[in-house]
């Protein structure tokens, strides 16, 4: 429990898996996350993740699809299973991680089913699909943009362009500022190896209508041999949409239904734009070519059978024309999967709880107790109770069937007298709503052990879990893992709405 500074604890690492099933490609990484007690020997232990080491990277596979365009879950599971064997890792070895499924609505029809098919691989505690907002964050962490913003003091906008979506996250001084997501990606058109158009996505059809002369789309239907100039001008339009969106305020015209979540505020001037994702991988290749052109001999723009090279070229040119300071992430295509594998889990502060036998708990909905309506200094059980009733009504789960996690926010570390009032009011409110046990609370201040003890005193039972040290500025659900280290630290993975498409 009390180690000297910087020394790893006895159970000194977690094995984590990140699985990314994208529109175009799917792959996985295994990471080893070392646990370090950051507190000095005379203070309450504070376990944090020290080193994050990627110990195995799978090859990048094309995502297997069914004939209707949906993901072939059985074949994905088969691919992943072979990678586990290759890496000599079994699902039992996995402590945490995340599976992320991205792409267009059509692809995601059977996403839940796909998750179910790979669930046997993901061990006890792996978050299923993070949702667009968290994908943006994870790709920005995995690309190294967050870390660089911390080290350099810069404001960095990470743009992860994949097959189906463009995930954007802005970081400043090592903190997340905002995220956004566009339904634009490199697989909006698909081609045969000799460049014949074979398929197009919803966005592809839309893009096709944007070029004068092809308004009737006649030139851009499957089977057509579209001239490269036409494809390049389409790519320029798509690149303009992305770059306008990230660089200029109030650009939403023509983007209706393409923005997932909300647009960027543009209140934070960007020092550097970082690119990651599969398209950034191609940008890196093209940046070595004169004019970033796809016409170079060494480049076969139809190598991956999609629009990626065209889009990558247009973005390179656009970035240079606008003179944007930019860089390509170190391992662009793996940014999201590294984020999912290495950065999806958070560790709670030291906590003392008797209810850990209930863990792990998956998909616990978060209720943000809005304390602007409730007097922090004088919490009334009735007000809290009514708030909980309303919040629970918004979920399809009944209060008595599944635990909810209630988030408490205090502006300052609460004093003993305040915490006591809160414990008593919360105990009454939880009972009135016949919430399922264990009761779960998450506080933003360093108060988890104190509130836990006070709640146990009020409730006269031990079925209560109180956590602190978790950043829940985003997210709708959490997975709460089994205690690690010496048993007083709980791993938590945050998720946003699963498969929300708007």
């Amino acid at each position: 429990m009390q180690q000297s500074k910087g020394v790893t604890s006895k159970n000194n690492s977690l094995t984590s898996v990140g699985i990314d099933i994208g529109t175009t490609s799917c792959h996985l990484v295994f990471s080893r996350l070392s646990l370090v007690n950051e507190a000095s020997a005379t203070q309450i232990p504070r376990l944090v993740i020290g080193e994050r080491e990627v110990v195995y990277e799978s090859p990048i596979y094309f995502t297997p699809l069914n004939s209707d365009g949906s993901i072939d879950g059985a074949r994905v599971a088969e691919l992943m299973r072979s990678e586990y064997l290759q890496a000599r890792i079994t699902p039992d070895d996995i402590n945490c991680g995340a599976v992320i499924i991205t792409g267009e609505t059509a692809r995601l029809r059977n996403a839940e089913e796909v998750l179910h098919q790979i669930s046997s691989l993901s061990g006890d505690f792996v978050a299923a699909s993070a949702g667009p907002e968290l994908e943006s964050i994870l790709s920005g962490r995995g690309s190294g943009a967050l870390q660089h913003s911390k080290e350099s003091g810069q404001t960095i906008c990470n743009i992860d362009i994949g097959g189906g979506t463009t995930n954007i996250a802005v970081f400043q001084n090592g903190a997340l500022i905002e995220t956004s997501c566009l339904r634009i990606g490199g697989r909006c058109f698909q081609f045969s190896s000799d460049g014949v158009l074979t398929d197009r996505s919803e966005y592809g059809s839309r893009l096709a209508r944007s070029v004068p002369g092809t308004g009737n789309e006649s030139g851009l239907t499957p089977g057509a041999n579209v001239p490269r100039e036409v494809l390049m001008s389409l790519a320029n339009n798509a690149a303009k949409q992305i770059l306008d969106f990230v660089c200029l305020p109030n650009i939403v015209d023509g983007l209706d239904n393409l923005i997932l979540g909300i647009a960027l505020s543009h209140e934070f001037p960007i020092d550097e734009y970082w690119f990651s994702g599969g398209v950034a991988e191609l940008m890196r290749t093209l940046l070595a070519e004169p004019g970033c052109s796809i016409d170079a001999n060494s480049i076969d723009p139809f190598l991956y059978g999609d629009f990626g090279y065209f889009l990558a070229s247009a973005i390179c040119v656009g970035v240079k024309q606008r003179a944007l300071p930019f860089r390509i992430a170190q391992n662009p295509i793996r940014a999201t999967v590294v984020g999912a594998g290495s950065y999806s889990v958070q560790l709670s502060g030291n906590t003392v709880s008797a209810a850990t036998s209930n863990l792990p708990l998956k998909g616990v909905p978060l209720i943000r107790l809005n304390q602007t309506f409730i007097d922090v200094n004088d919490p009334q059980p009735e007000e809290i109770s009514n708030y909980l009733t309303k919040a629970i009504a918004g979920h399809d789960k009944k209060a008595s069937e599944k635990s909810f996690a209630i988030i408490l926010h205090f502006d300052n570390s609460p004093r003993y007298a305040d915490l006591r009032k809160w414990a008593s009011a919360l105990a009454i409110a939880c009972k009135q709503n016949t919430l399922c046990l264990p009761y779960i609370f998450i506080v933003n201040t360093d108060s988890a052990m104190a509130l836990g003890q006070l709640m146990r005193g009020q409730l006269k039972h031990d079925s209560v879990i109180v956590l602190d040290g978790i950043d829940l500025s985003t997210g709708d659900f959490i997975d709460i893992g089994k205690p690690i280290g010496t048993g007083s630290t709980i791993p938590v993975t945050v998720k946003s709405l699963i498969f929300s498409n708007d």
Partner: protein
Amino acid sequence: MNRSRSEKEAQQLASMNNATPARIGVGRVGTRPPTNAWLRFRHDHAAARDAVHSELSESFIDQFAHANKLPIVQSLATDRADFVLNPPKGKKTSEADLAKIRQQCPSGQDVQIVICDGLSALAIETNLNELLPMLEEGLKIEGITSGKPVVVRYGRVAIADQISHALGAKLAINLVGERPGLSSGVGMSAYLTYKPGPQTISSDRTVVSNIHDRGTPPVEAGAYIVHLVKTILDKKVSGVELQKTL
């Protein structure tokens, strides 16, 4: 409209300053610190010195010790100056005071709490009202008995071992004002000793330090100490030996 370099650096420094109470990036004027940084340093240094010389106030003694009918004793030091100049005197109390304690406190409890001013009486006055109720309620919830806390003037860490030994407690908790530093004059520590007595040495004690609002909040520390007490009673060992078992 990008941030200027100085704006950027100011924001970066602000985020570093948020992470530490240390005096970083205060700047300089010629070869000296800027006036405001120098004044703040002098202020904090003065506060630290005041804390060392602070005595448990009459109002604290009245509202806390007298109101709860707690025994108040003194170490072998005759006054604050004697205590500061002769540290060993702070480790023991007189036979007369021990007799008084035996008379007023129940013996044979699981836990004996001893409260010492140590090197900052202010630390005790600032944190005790937050920590002690958590500690006492928590022990009760866990079914661990604890007698009447004893208040000691001019006391140092080892004195709790002497007092707890005299009362036959299994575990001594010494709440003591820490040596003040330049970032806080009100830090408190808790020292826990299993089977305290004359044979106790420093490595037998488990310590929780830096208890104050900007360190470990006292209310949280109270709950944590309950957990430590439980662990120590369970493992029947404290200090370095306890760490080896975890």
